[in-house]
């Protein structure tokens, strides 16, 4: 048992590091790369991200797991992991390309036409065109197949009407991939068609969603008679669910428990030592120490589970099912740690003012942001269902809408 790279991995890591050293600035110890602030990402930030992406693309370091024919290196999962580990140590612009490059590009590779692959993949890889995912709707989140946004054929075009929600980055994206209802008379997942849509199309209206932490990383996107060419249909008519599954599988693969940034365990310990309870550091209180120990053990459990995943990837194996627990464990843990940190501070825990609050209000910000992590990319409850059904082989949920035509499914509005 050891934590070493294989000779091949070590050589690869060395190559990666050499290129990054020559092309980017290394972060100082303890410094985090600025994450994607949930503000309305500025054009300046997008430009910086695109410049960095182009630089990587020119050197052959963009989307390294993509097949060579689309500009990638055909790199393995472990090489991708090594690349990400190394890149995270440098001061680089936030990644705004993850949705396209991580999920939508791979979907086009599997389900797209040759024309679509030729037109879209290279600009996506180079960061010249940024993509968003138009999936969830106000009445279809966890139950994505219950989507209502419609696409009606009109000659060699389709007319889209409806609304998408939780669309990250819609405001700066060139293209979106949208799942639509094209046949409401059949079962819900059998009447769905997948399209690529130009986000500058007439009839598209983008509205930011204000989250509980005051930020707006997500959007509502309204479609009023938006026209899409049939050449931008991905996959066959009414068979879009297959493509959606491919997209979702890639989403699952890319969302780890991983490094959300923000305050961490060492920050929590430091705060416990600096905060006084009855004239003594809170860190000396037995209950505080027990809570800290529990957090530590859980965090380490996640970290070591990540090592087990990396071990499987290093061997060229599919990671075991325990690799899927990262978000389910990590997101509530983050919320609990923030809750505990605030409690440590007593009434002062209610301060979020950067100049007054301990740790500049970082734990307060985390507390407000953390419910979102338990909902986005698969809610805690859906993740539990997935573990129960796919990992533990337990029976699937009873579907009240099984076999029903979509138009007949109860929605609460049509009892």
């Amino acid at each position: 048992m050891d934590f070493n790279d294989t000779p091949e991995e070590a050589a690869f890591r060395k190559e990666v590091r050499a290129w990054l050293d020559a092309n980017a600035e290394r972060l100082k110890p303890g410094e985090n790369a600025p994450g994607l602030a949930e503000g309305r990402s500025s054009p300046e930030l997008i430009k910086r991200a695109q410049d960095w992406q182009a630089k990587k693309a020119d050197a052959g370091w963009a989307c390294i797991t993509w097949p060579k024919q689309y500009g990638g290196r055909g790199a393995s999962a472990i090489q991708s992991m090594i690349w990400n580990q190394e890149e995270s140590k440098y001061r680089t612009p936030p990644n705004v390309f993850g949705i396209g490059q991580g999920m939508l590009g791979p979907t086009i590779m599997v389900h797209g036409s040759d024309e679509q692959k030729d037109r879209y993949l290279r600009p996506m890889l180079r960061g010249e065109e940024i993509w968003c995912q138009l999936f969830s709707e106000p009445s279809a989140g966890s139950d994505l197949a219950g989507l209502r946004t419609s696409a009606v054929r009109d000659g060699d075009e389709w007319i889209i009407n409806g609304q998408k929600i939780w669309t990250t980055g819609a405001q700066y994206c060139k293209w979106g991939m949208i799942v639509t209802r094209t046949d409401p008379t059949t079962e819900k997942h059998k009447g769905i068609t997948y399209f690529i849509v130009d986000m500058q199309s007439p009839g598209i209206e983008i509205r930011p969603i204000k989250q509980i932490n005051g930020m707006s990383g997500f959007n509502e996107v309204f479609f009023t008679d938006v026209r899409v060419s049939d050449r931008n249909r991905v996959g066959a008519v009414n068979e879009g669910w297959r493509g959606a599954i491919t997209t979702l599988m890639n989403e699952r693969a890319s969302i780890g428990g991983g490094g959300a940034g923000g305050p961490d365990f060492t920050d929590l310990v430091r705060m416990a030592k600096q905060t006084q309870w009855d004239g003594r550091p809170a860190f000396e209180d037995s209950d505080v120490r027990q809570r800290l120990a529990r957090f530590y053990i859980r965090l380490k459990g996640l970290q070591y589970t990540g090592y087990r995943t990396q071990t499987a990837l290093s061997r060229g194996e599919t990671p075991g099912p325990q690799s899927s627990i990262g978000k389910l464990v990590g997101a509530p843990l983050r919320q609990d740690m923030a809750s505990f940190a605030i409690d440590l501070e007593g009434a002062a825990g209610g301060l979020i003012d950067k100049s007054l609050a301990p740790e500049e209000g970082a734990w307060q910000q985390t507390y407000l942001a953390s419910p979102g992590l338990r909902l986005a990319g698969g809610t805690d409850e859906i993740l539990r269902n997935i573990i129960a059904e796919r990992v533990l082989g337990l029976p699937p949920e009873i579907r009240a809408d099984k076999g029903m035509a979509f138009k007949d499914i109860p929605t609460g509005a049509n009892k």
Partner: protein
Amino acid sequence: MNFDFSDDQKLLQKTARDYLAEHAPLSVCRAVLESDASYSEMLWKGVAELGWLGTAIPEQYGGSGFGRLELAVMAEEVGRALAPIPFSSSVYLATEAILRFGSEAQKQELLPKLASGERLGAFAHAERPGEHGPEGVGTKLTKGKLSGTKVPVADGDSAHFALVTARSGKEVGLALVDLTGDGVSRTRVRSIDPSRSLASIQFNGAPAQWLGTAKSWDEIQHVLDRAAVLMAFEQLGGAQRAFDITREFCLGRYAFGRPVASFQAIKHRLADLYVEIELARSNAYYGAWALSNESPELGRAAAGARAAASDAFELASKEMIQMHGGVGYTWEYDCHLFYRRAKWLAVALGSTHQWREQLIQRLEA
């Protein structure tokens, strides 16, 4: 990254699992639990003959010369079978302590007999309720004579010798004492898990010697750390078995026209239990790495492994009963075998509360 057991180690684990599946079905644990037997002598003899007891003992002392990683996978299988044998006392505690701290003479005298199984070792530390550091050690070793009472001592009734935490003036260390000799009076005492015997041992001037260089609390804690890692694997094995049995039961048990396993509450709780066991497994792996590399991280790795495994096994055993419904509460069903064992192991090396406190102290060190 190679954070896993080797193919050879996994093969060893499979061999152990197959052996115990055949020779230690849960009825063997139950037989000890329901009788006055202290342990299954037949099973003990069987595993001794296979060389399990000497897994990590060097060949020069009669062992197989493997390492702690091999011992860890065997411990998991012992745990999976709820094997009613003094494996933890003799192997994780007595053998490890002698290997690490014993004098050459003590090693030569005891290790071959531990390897063959003809001698059982025990570890005697607790004296009264609660958690006590060195100041809680009341048993005294004065001029080669041991005096005091230790209770409970796991396998104290069947062991031939024991390592006993004792003091001499301000120093505390491990005393090696022949339990079959003079000045030793022992009584079996009732345990929450009768498949693992406990004893009260009174020492009245029993001849004893210090174990090699084990003359400080740090060394005693180190012995406990080593045992904690190995016991974590045993706890993991038990937790996993409890989980597997519960899952099977829920799939086969029908209510309201469908398997109990199809109810979302049950699905989610099993998913949560799966997560806890996997987190504990990952922490145990790190403990195994630290142990096999004699890493300075062992203290915190052991504490993390133990706390996680204790909690996971206890949770698994509680969920097992609950998900079985009423029959889970019957003597006849095997659920209580796990419930009892989980709770005993959770305190056998000291409370989880204390181990979590240890973890914080070691993060600071």
